[in-house]
């Protein structure tokens, strides 16, 4: 992540686009702005409209309503071959009948550049993705990670204003995916190109992006920096989709300085004030499992007792499922060698710092649905 990424102003403007496929509305009046030199991710479950949005930006689909401008120029119905964008496709779409070299050279050949220049730029692009010396290979002779790099080089060699990435890492296995995430970030920072990525993996979006847009059912719910959407999700969907979340429905009892007390089935829990809450209002307290302390939490303002229903070891964490009356909580406690474990059935104290819990509206939809800056 590059917090000091150069901001060159609006590079891609998506203005209220709507796209239907027959009776299905894939994208509903989505607007957002991607800044120049930014790594932007569209995040959401499959079928949420994120890929359609990316394809509208690339010119592979045309929006039924609204429009897309790149670098200030409205794109209209400009076909993909005349847009200043290049795409890395989900299944890579490498040309199986060409060598690595010819794959990467394809875009330059289409521009009828001199052979000399093509040779040089392809060489540079392959070096950039750390694949020199494999130019003569067939695509089928490459590993998954190498194919991924060729797909990147084939797009980047054209020096697009905006690079579009459609689930670029989804075909790789875990270890390789983590490694390629780091590399994509490095490339983006080195080149300063605007990257627009689409992914269904919250971890990937959080780790790579300068800003993330969270989509579901064709609606853009929230756009923000990774920490912002994790810390202050705008609604239940965002809270639940980005990481694990305890969502406790309750009624506002009163406020006390920076915190608010919410009664949820016999238990009173506290959270950070949002500003829009009112006494008597039904709303939802969202608290992340790793912010819940158990065992020694009796001195926290909203401590209560619960019973361990189940636990699971995940490596760095032990995840407990607790029942406190009608409220069920997931807690993730760092696990250190020799750390005490609570057993199933054991009674424990649980609680959290109220400033680590936030309020979200109880209804599933966002208050100002459609989102976007």
């Amino acid at each position, binding site marked *: 992540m590059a917090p000091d990424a150069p901001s060159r102003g609006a590079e891609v403007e998506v203005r209220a686009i709507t796209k239907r496929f027959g009776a299905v509305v894939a994208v509903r009046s989505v607007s957002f702005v991607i800044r120049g030199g930014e790594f932007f991710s569209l995040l959401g479950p499959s079928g949420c409209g994120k890929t359609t949005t990316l394809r509208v930006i690339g010119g592979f689909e045309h929006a039924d309503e609204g429009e897309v401008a790149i670098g200030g120029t409205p794109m209209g119905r400009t076909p993909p071959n005349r847009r200043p964008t290049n795409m890395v496709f989900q299944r890579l779409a490498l040309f199986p009948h060409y060598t690595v070299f010819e794959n990467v050279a394809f*875009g330059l050949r289409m521009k009828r550049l001199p052979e000399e220049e093509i040779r040089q730029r392809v060489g540079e692009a392959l070096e950039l993705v750390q694949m020199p010396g494999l130019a003569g290979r067939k695509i089928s002779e490459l590993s998954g990670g190498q194919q991924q790099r060729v797909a990147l080089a084939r797009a980047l060699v054209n020096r697009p204003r905006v690079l579009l990435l459609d689930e670029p890492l989804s075909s790789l296995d875990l270890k390789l995916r983590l490694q390629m995430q780091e590399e994509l970030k490095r490339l983006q920072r080195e080149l300063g190109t605007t990257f627009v990525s689409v992914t269904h993996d919250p971890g990937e979006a959080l780790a790579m992006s300068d800003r993330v847009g969270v989509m579901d059912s064709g609606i853009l719910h929230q756009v923000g920096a990774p920490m912002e959407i994790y810390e202050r999700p705008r609604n239940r969907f965002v809270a639940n989709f980005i990481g694990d979340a305890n969502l406790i429905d309750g009624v506002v009892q009163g406020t006390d300085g920076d915190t608010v007390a919410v009664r949820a089935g016999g238990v009173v829990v506290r959270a950070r004030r949002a500003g829009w809450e009112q006494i008597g209002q039904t709303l939802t307290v969202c608290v992340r499992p790793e912010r819940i302390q158990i065992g020694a939490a009796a001195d926290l303002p909203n401590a209560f007792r619960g019973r361990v229903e189940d636990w699971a070891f995940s490596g760095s964490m032990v995840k407990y499922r607790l029942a406190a009356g009608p409220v069920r909580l997931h807690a993730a406690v760092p696990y250190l060698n020799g750390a005490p474990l609570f057993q199933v059935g054991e009674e424990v104290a649980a609680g959290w710092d109220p400033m680590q819990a936030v309020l979200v509206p109880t209804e599933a939809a966002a208050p100002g649905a459609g989102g976007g800056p």
Partner: protein
Amino acid sequence: MRIQGTLLWGLLAPALGLMALFYVVPLGVYFLNSFHLFRDGRIIPVWTLATYVEFFTDPFSYRIIGRSLQLAVIVTSLTILVAYPVAYALHTRVARPGVRAALALLLFSPLMVSVVVRTYGWLILLANQGLVNTLLRAARVIETPLTLLFNMPGVVISLTHIFLPFAIFPMYSVMGKLDLTLKEAARDLGAGWWDTFTHITLPLTMPGVVAAALICFTLSLSAFVTPQLLGGGRVQVLPLAVYNSTVEINWPAGAVAGLVLLVLSILAVRALNAVIRRLPGV
């Protein structure tokens, strides 16, 4: 799950038996005639290469072989040229479901109509007093009627028409396996429609084209009904030579012609198979 070998060969037995008894054996026996002699209207069961010598020293034989190959090459090329765009159009799915179904019905319907019925249809259409000549003369395009029947053009046109579905099938099937995002990728990299077609679609669908060519070539080479009925004896090809010789009880000559036909087919299949194996991505 694999079933036992014994049981499996049991399952295969009827088919293998049928093939052996009704294909390999009779063909072998028939071809044995090629080593016999035909003199004075009867077959003399001596063992000799005389019939081969006669066949290969007769210039007329080469004219028949040449005519057969010429017909096969022309029909194959024409069929592929007409069928490829159709397969491409069906593949890109521009037509709405209704239109596509109608197209498919139209294209594959020849298979449903007996070749005899079809051939007589053409007789009417292509005859000197037929529909085409009548229309052309009414429109004053021509003065004397065009000879479309009992010659090569008629046979070529009708064979092309018959083989169209056989050529569309394999090409359409290969196109169905073509990853459409490859075409999107080419467009994304700056290729227009024509560049996408020549650099991506055509090379990657060549296996289908070669398979179609293989089928059309082999079928053309051994086509019998159409050259017989529409060629009017003037389109002398190998299958007709086999038929004519055998009808005249000259089985040795028929067997030699039949063997030549078989060898030509096998050579064509091998040649086109070699092409397929060298294609990219196969």
